[in-house]
């Protein structure tokens, strides 16, 4: 696109002063480059490692200070809650789930992009995922940490939160195995464990790189400990590749299972607006939608701040915006099916629940949800929008807002106006509700900023493997693809999008 640099000012590479090359147009023959302006592996190593080796920019300190104070406020809110009781939230009867579970579902959803990128896109041979997988996986783990907080504190008596787990105890009490709330504990627990292992295993070669480059004794020791003796021998690499493939295959069902189980929390019940069979795939699509939006929201400032534009290129952002568009359409499909079937079913409660969502006391929340999740993402049909940094940033924030409201709409509107009009009520959040929600973003931000500061933000070894230099083809250098000599290229083909 010719007007790329015009539409998005300040796109000059932070390190080299190059104008950002346009790699968004996929040629019909061959493939667009995924790493720009670099010709040696060492340049990639340097580009990524220097983030962890040098002092971060001033913006990092400012962001960290803000997030840390939000985290402090979270600590205050949670402490106040524990000492006082869940009454400090705006919950009432019948709205017994509100911000707490909304935030839980929101954060679990955010986590999905990481697993999708690292596992499913890996199996789909999407090579562009290497530029973004590391910090998307990190984001997954931090998001699940934030998610895990909420069920823990909403049980009321936090000191009994361990009852969530099926631990044999002296009272011979077990959790209800037929309850999806317990399945949630297993699903989210498994998800967290596998994501963590996947993230860590993928990071080992890069940790070893940081160790080898480290100047200080402490850094050498810390990175060395984390690199668990990686020497980069052929045998190490062989085992690493096999382990990575197997972990990808094991993580793939988790992309579907976690949010499906979260959706079961609602869908197995008979609450109108909750009991609908499309919930599992609909929640999964929504989770990927919100997860990718969060990746875009984080990638845009991160690549700017740390000078990673040659590794997280416009093509990566363009692809992510396409996935946001796709999953946004899926979410729109699910909304339409719910509405259509609510009418088609002839069930009066079901019908009421959906009309009430759109025109009842929380109509504004519903229309925020529809606008942000279905309408504004349609702008991503235009390439000019998909490749405009300011627009994609704004739209990705919109999606995050919309997906938060989606969970709020599902949970609160259905509970507030259930079968019995005499028990209807309205949920109004208190300052503790809002403080806990905001504080969770602080927790997420602190973890993410620490990750950016101290760990390799980009999978150095994987990015190198997709550079043309990793694919030597001595016989036909410069001969266009389509010639006979192309036979000699190993590992070609496959990659699409």
């Amino acid at each position, binding site marked *: 696109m010719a007007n790329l640099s015009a539409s998005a000012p300040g796109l000059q590479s932070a390190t080299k002063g190059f104008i950002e090359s346009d790699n968004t147009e*996929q040629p*019909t*023959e061959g493939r667009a480059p995924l790493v720009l302006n670099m010709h040696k592996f060492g340049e990639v190593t340097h580009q990524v490692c220097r983030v962890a080796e040098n002092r971060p920019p001033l913006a990092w300190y400012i962001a960290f200070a803000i997030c840390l104070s939000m985290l402090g406020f979270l600590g205050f809110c949670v402490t106040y809650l524990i000492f006082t009781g869940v009454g400090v939230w705006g919950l009432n009867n019948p709205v017994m789930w509100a911000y707490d579970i909304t935030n839980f579902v929101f954060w679990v959803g955010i986590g999905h992009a990481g697993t999708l990128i690292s596992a499913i896109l890996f199996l789909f041979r999407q090579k562009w995922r290497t530029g973004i997988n590391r910090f998307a996986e990190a984001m997954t783990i931090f998001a699940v940490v934030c998610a895990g907080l909420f069920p823990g504190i909403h049980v009321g008596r936090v000191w009994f939160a361990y009852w969530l787990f099926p631990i044999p105890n002296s009272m011979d009490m077990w959790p209800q195995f037929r309850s999806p709330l317990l399945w949630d504990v297993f699903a989210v627990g498994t998800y967290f464990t596998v994501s963590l292992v996947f993230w860590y295993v993928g990071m080992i070669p890069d940790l070893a790189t940081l160790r080898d480059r480290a100047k200080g004794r402490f850094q050498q020791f810390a990175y060395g400990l984390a690199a668990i003796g990686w020497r980069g021998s052929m045998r190490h690499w062989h085992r690493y590749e096999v382990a990575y493939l197997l972990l990808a295959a094991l993580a793939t*069902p988790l992309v*579907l299972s976690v949010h*499906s189980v979260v959706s*079961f929390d609602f*869908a*197995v*019940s*008979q609450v109108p607006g909750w*009991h*609908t*069979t*499309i*919930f*599992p*795939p609909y929640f999964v699509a929504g989770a990927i939608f919100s997860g990718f939006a969060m990746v875009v929201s984080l990638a845009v400032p991160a690549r700017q701040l740390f000078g990673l534009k040659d590794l997280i290129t416009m093509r990566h952002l363009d692809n992510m915006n396409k996935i946001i568009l796709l999953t946004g*359409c899926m979410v729109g*499909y*699910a909304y339409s*099916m*719910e509405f259509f*079937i609510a*009418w*088609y*079913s*002839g*069930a009066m409660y079901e019908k009421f629940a959906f009309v009430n969502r759109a025109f009842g006391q929380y109509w504004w929340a519903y229309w925020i949800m529809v606008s942000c999740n279905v309408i504004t993402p349609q702008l991503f*049909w235009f390439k000019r929008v998909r490749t405009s940094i300011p627009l994609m940033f704004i739209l990705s924030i919109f999606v995050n807002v919309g997906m938060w409201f989606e969970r709020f709409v599902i949970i609160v509107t259905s509970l507030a106006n259930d079968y019995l009009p005499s028990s209807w009520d309205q949920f109004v959040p208190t300052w503790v509700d809002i403080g806990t929600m905001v504080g969770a973003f602080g927790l997420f931000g602190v973890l993410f900023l620490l990750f950016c500061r101290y760990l390799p933000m980009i999978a150095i070894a994987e990015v190198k493997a997709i550079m043309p230099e990793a694919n030597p083809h001595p016989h036909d250098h410069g001969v266009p*693809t*389509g*010639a*006979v000599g*192309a*036979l000699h*290229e*190993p*590992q*070609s*083909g*496959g*990659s*699409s*999008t």
Partner: protein
Amino acid sequence: MSAALTTVADLSDRSVLGDARLVRVSRAAALIAVVALVLAAIVAWRQGDPHGFAMIWLQNGIYVLTLALGAFFFVLIQHITNAGWGVAVRRVAEAQAANLNWLWILFLVPMFWLFVTDRQFHGSGHAEGYTFGHGLALIWPWADLAHLSAESPAEGVIVAAKSAYLNVPFFLIRACVYFAFWAIATTWFFRTSRMQDHSGDPSLSRRMRFAAAPALILFALTSTFAAFDWIMSLSPAWFSTMFGIYFFAGICAGGFSALAMGCLRVQGLGYLRGVITAEHYQDLGKMIWAFGIVFWAYIAFSQYMLIWYGNLPEETVWFIARQIGDWAWVSVALLLGHFIIPFLFFVSRWAKRWRGTLTIGVVWMLAFAWLDIYWLVMPVVPHDVATYTTYDALAAVYATTSTGLGNPLNYLMLVGFVGLSVAGATHRLSRCAVLCRRDPRLNESLRFENI
């Protein structure tokens, strides 16, 4: 190292151009189809059960429809993702999808015939003369609301409430819209792709990529509402928001398996030797495994679990109809044959790569995809289901419910319709190249290797 040992320059016309070999297959398939359909007509006439015959017609019609829709979906995702690997098999998929431009005959002709006919097929007490569109009640009970209400008043009330959607004229208009879109879109993609065979113009690839996005949206909507109209409304009081997705999973199971089968057979005729390789078969196998087996099981489980757990009578009746009498065995057979056994079979690498094992696998999947449609279309919700106080009492009364799988008409119609589809696809292939031979990504597809 099993990448194709062929490059674009090496492709011979004999390996690529459709010729008499395909014509022979096409004629043989058409002949078999005609014989089977004539036999079916005789058997149906002797059985004298118009309702049963219509249901078998519908079920087999939907089955061959899913095979074509699956190929259409495959073509669309190849374009929209800029995929390189699949170019070698795309022409076979395009020809398979192109059946959609005549499959409407199997649907719209009987529908309109039932619409205009003044016969009422069910029982006694029908009105004199022509009653508007009631003939469709031979298949879809909502088309004759008075009769439905007389048989089951409660159901009549529910169905009357949705008559703004479930009414005969709108139903027929929708069917025409679905088929118009499918026929136009598949014809366009097939024609544009063949244009590239002659011109090699890369801008055609770009044009198909642009068209694939709106086509996918329309594909999702038409296949969903077709499933609602033709399958879900067979039990007109029942509903499930996920039903369209379940049907889509079935489309993938049948369509991708049929595509793999088509590639195997086209190669068996001597075409595309060294072009479609174990690598492509492995990827096709992965798609069958991922979409047709695992995704199908995920959707089937979610739908069943949520409804059975929720335990609302108006929803569970649909599954009760599928687990009373002999239907229980069909349900179990689907669990085993559509999920567990092929899951284990297709998970291994060699089973997807070796043509012998892959053939066994896709024939198996095609059979169970058919059984899945049978399971969707055929069971009847007992009208007195609400009168039982316990599930056991109901199950005891209906313990002898038969599935009708022993009826030879099923298999004659299956052979007839599949024969027509094979004849249609091979006829088209015989008149063009069986490979998108000048697609700019063909080389990438030829030298593609799984890691």
